[in-house]
């Protein structure tokens, strides 16, 4: 029978906290940048201009249909060779994760927008609104409500995907726990603690978002 000893982790607390800070900070960056890429992808695919549609579609499928681990390695190792673009591991992984997340956000945002009944934009147009006013005042406020659960879901995945940056030696929570596990010979305790840490951050967040959804649904 295995003898659990979580006490040993206490001496690595600063290492874990450091890693957790990097993980959370990274998530904030890739969610924000990912949403920006997502907006581009969504409005690009809905655009009247064929070139823009094609560009957005290429972006979405390129990042949606290839594994994130391959993208991370590719951005860090291949880009310098092919394009002469040197990036720090942090920049490379932030960029790859933002684009990867952005490709999924694109489809969520696009789906939310096209799910709103055409009659809504017709009513806006009939009042004399421009397409941009209709989008901002009528379609988006309704569409965002529908997007929230899926956006939250994707952001949770993004949070957990940050664990992959450890392959580029970015010192996130997983990377630091590898260090701790090797040092302490206690991988079971270490990774159990890491799993609990991820869940401890995500579960309260999901509860908050569920409450928010209920509040938003008041007019439905």
């Amino acid at each position: 029978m295995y003898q659990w000893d979580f006490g040993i982790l206490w001496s690595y607390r600063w290492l874990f906290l450091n890693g957790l800070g990097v993980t959370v900070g990274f998530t904030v960056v890739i969610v924000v940048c990912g949403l920006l890429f997502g907006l581009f992808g969504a409005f690009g695919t809905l655009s009247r201009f064929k070139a823009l549609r094609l560009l957005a579609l290429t972006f979405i499928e390129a990042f949606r249909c290839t594994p994130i681990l391959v993208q991370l390695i590719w951005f860090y190792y291949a880009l310098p060779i092919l394009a002469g673009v040197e990036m720090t591991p942090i920049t490379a992984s932030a960029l790859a994760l933002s684009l990867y997340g952005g490709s999924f956000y694109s489809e969520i945002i696009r789906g939310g927008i096209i799910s709103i009944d055409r009659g809504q934009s017709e009513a806006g147009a009939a009042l004399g609104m421009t397409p941009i006013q209709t989008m901002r005042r009528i379609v988006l406020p309704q569409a965002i409500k529908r997007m929230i659960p899926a956006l939250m879901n994707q952001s949770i995945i993004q949070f957990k995907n940050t664990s992959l940056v450890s392959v580029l030696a970015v010192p996130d929570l997983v990377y630091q726990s590898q260090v701790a596990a090797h040092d302490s010979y206690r991988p079971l305790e270490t990774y159990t603690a890491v799993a609990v840490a991820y869940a401890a951050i995500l579960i309260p967040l999901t509860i908050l978002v569920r409450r928010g959804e209920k509040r938003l649904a008041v007019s439905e």
Partner: protein
Amino acid sequence: MSETQKIEIRSLRKSFGSNEVLKNINLGVAKGGVVALIGPSGSGKSTLLRCINLLVVPDGGSVRVGDTHFAFGDGAKPPDVKTLAKFRATTGMVFQHFNLFPHMTTLENVMEGPVTVRRMAKADAEKLARTQLAKVGLAEKADQYPATLSGGQKQRVAIARALAMEPDVMLFDEATSALDPELVGEVLNVIQQLASEGMTMVIVTHEIAFAREVADRLIFMRDGVVVEEGPARQVIDNPREAATRAFLSHFHRTGALPPATTAS
């Protein structure tokens, strides 16, 4: 057609793909006139109505409402979005399925046009909106969301929303077709009141008795062409064309309007 015509449509054509929906339509509506458009499904009457405020952009012909004139086809440049928006602000439209904005209260729905399009101050827009809501008998529903209203109430809010733009003409696209029978009357009453106030209106409807009562002219369309046109009572009571006769035989043409159940 003379200059006293408020709406003038000339040689209008529209196709969706290979399906020619409107074939050389001519139509005039006098200032203060009420024209009813009737015809079977797929006859093109809704498309024609949507061409009047350019919600559907025609392939050919011309559209004039008041002093604004547009020509289409044969090298004519299609109007840009700003021009279209400005033009549509002068016409009010009411839809079969109401299309109220579900994320706004009744009052906000009616204020939306004045605030966003006419750049009216919020306080003025609210005053205007409350006046319009009172006009359709729904002053006390101002702070409710559309989801809590009956179909008839929703449609009356939609009429108030269109009126808040103080339009020159009102277009009704089967405004009562999605309503329960007992709620039709309250909406027709509001439309009739508008007619008596001298609003220029084009009404696509299946309420033949109502058209006979309220419209001064009636247009019967089938397969994208105007089959018969004339004074409403005359066309309904003594249709000249066999197609008109066949269509009208499905309806009670006279009789009282449906009772106005003031369910507000």
